[in-house]
């Protein structure tokens, strides 16, 4: 999504400052500094196992940093009590890596859950809201199915419908297209684009679907060696001279720029 000319620097909604985190003896984050701006789409890229999802978990307040602070709407989320934390989280929608649907509930009940638990709508109003969201995702046929009966792509769409149920201000996507084929991931990207146009939410996406994901990004941040190596527009990112970013770009998109001879060599090996 492109930001308007007149608001080049919208306010910061999430800010990570000097966040460090270890799991056991393994140090995953070594001082992460990152800002998410309102209405923008931030994409965090990096090799697998670098802790990209851990960053999202910090933003959601699910994981406590060993050092540093995580501010959401200007409040340190780890200093809030449970009630205040819930108030902050009411602005969140999350699409988890495997969609994290409740497998004891069918599609309809999964999507209805946020409405039933967090609002005082009656069942008719809940049905109206749920059917509208499911319609948007093209899932009207599947309402009585259970998560186990759904394909990976459908599960993600149900997860997205559930995440968007309460008109969140910030939506987090943890590897939204992992395990989907090219067609299915394009479909999900289209849904993402369309819903963001409609609802105008801020998005934080963790992905390694490079370069496709760049089309959606306003800003791209690279996580490597436990730190954010740079955060910039996708165009700048691809042309960056910063060695780590350049190495990442060459590694993941190298074949786009490599000469024919190299390409032939590559295929000859395969």
């Amino acid at each position, binding site marked *: 999504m492109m930001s308007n000319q007149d608001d080049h620097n919208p306010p910061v909604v999430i800010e990570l400052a000097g966040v460090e985190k270890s799991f056991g003896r393994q140090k995953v984050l070594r001082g992460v500094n990152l800002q998410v701006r309102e209405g923008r789409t931030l994409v965090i890229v990096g090799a697998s196992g670098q802790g990209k999802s851990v960053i999202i978990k910090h933003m959601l307040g699910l994981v406590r940093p060993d050092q540093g602070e995580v501010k959401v709407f200007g409040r340190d989320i780890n200093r809030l009590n449970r009630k205040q934390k819930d108030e902050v989280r009411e602005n969140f929608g999350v699409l*988890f890596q495997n969609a*994290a*649907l409740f497998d004891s509930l069918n599609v309809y009940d999964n999507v209805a*859950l946020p409405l039933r*638990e967090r609002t005082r709508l009656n069942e008719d109003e809940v049905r109206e809201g749920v059917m509208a969201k499911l319609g948007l995702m093209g899932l009207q046929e599947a309402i009585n199915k259970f998560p186990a009966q759904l394909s990976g792509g459908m599960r993600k769409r149900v997860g997205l419908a559930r995440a968007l149920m309460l008109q969140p201000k910030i939506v987090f996507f943890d590897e939204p297209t992992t395990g989907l084929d090219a067609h299915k991931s394009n479909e999900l990207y289209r849904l993402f684009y369309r819903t963001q146009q409609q609802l105008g939410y801020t998005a934080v996406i963790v992905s390694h679907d490079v370069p496709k994901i760049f089309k959606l990004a306003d800003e791209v941040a690279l996580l490597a060696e436990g730190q954010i190596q740079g955060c910039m527009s996708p165009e700048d990112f691809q042309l960056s001279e910063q060695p780590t970013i350049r190495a990442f770009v060459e590694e993941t998109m190298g074949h786009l720029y490599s000469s024919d001879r190299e390409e032939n060599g590559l295929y000859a090996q395969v």
Partner: protein
Amino acid sequence: MYLLLEKIGSGTLEFLETSGRMGMFLMRALTSMFQMPFKVNPVVRQVHFIGARSAFVILFTGLFTGMVLGLQGYYTLRKFGSEGFLGSAVALSLIRELGPVLTALMVIGRAGSAICAEVGIMRNSEQIDALECMAVDPFRFLIAPKLLAGIIAMPLLTAIFDVIGILGGYLVGTGLFGINPGAYFQGMYTSVVWADVEMGLVKSLVFGLLMVWIAACKGFYLHMERSGGFGAEGVSRTTTDAVVLSSVSVLVWDYLISALLL
């Protein structure tokens, strides 16, 4: 020497950590039971799962326990020429001890393991994280109905176990050994007092709480297990731990409650 000290230290730390976590879990689960709005449906569903669906197993084990008590009791009592006390012997041992304990052990095997595995898989597949991110309290939504259902279902199952067991003893006593049916029930009627029933009730309430507490807590904090709580193996190991720990706790608490109430 150094290694030994290290092991003792880390073992102690782990023990303290786990106990603290379990204590906090119980407090939060208990307080969330009383949070408004109270929803009846999830509790009914859990009572159905823990209670109704265990009923057949309980009927079966209750019947055979009563029958074997009748058999063994008869041989022992005959040595003292007091076969007439068979009714009271069967009833007292069932109501005070065997009913609550065996019911708890059976339900732990059937429902406790299932609760632990279910909650553990929910933790593993980020479903609990999803609840928290939706600002839905997982304790109120997930744990409280199970805890309440455990406390409701366990005494009911114990009551079924007791009744069926007494009937089993009756069948063996009168059918096999020709004991007077009237004497069987009369003996029971005169020797069983309210305090015995009360003891059985207290035990089954405590066991119901213990089972759900340990099973749900183990599953809920699966990711914090030191031995590694990831994946299918983590779930299976934690479920085994939960079943063993809750079975042992049932026996320990059985002794403590008996000692306190006697």
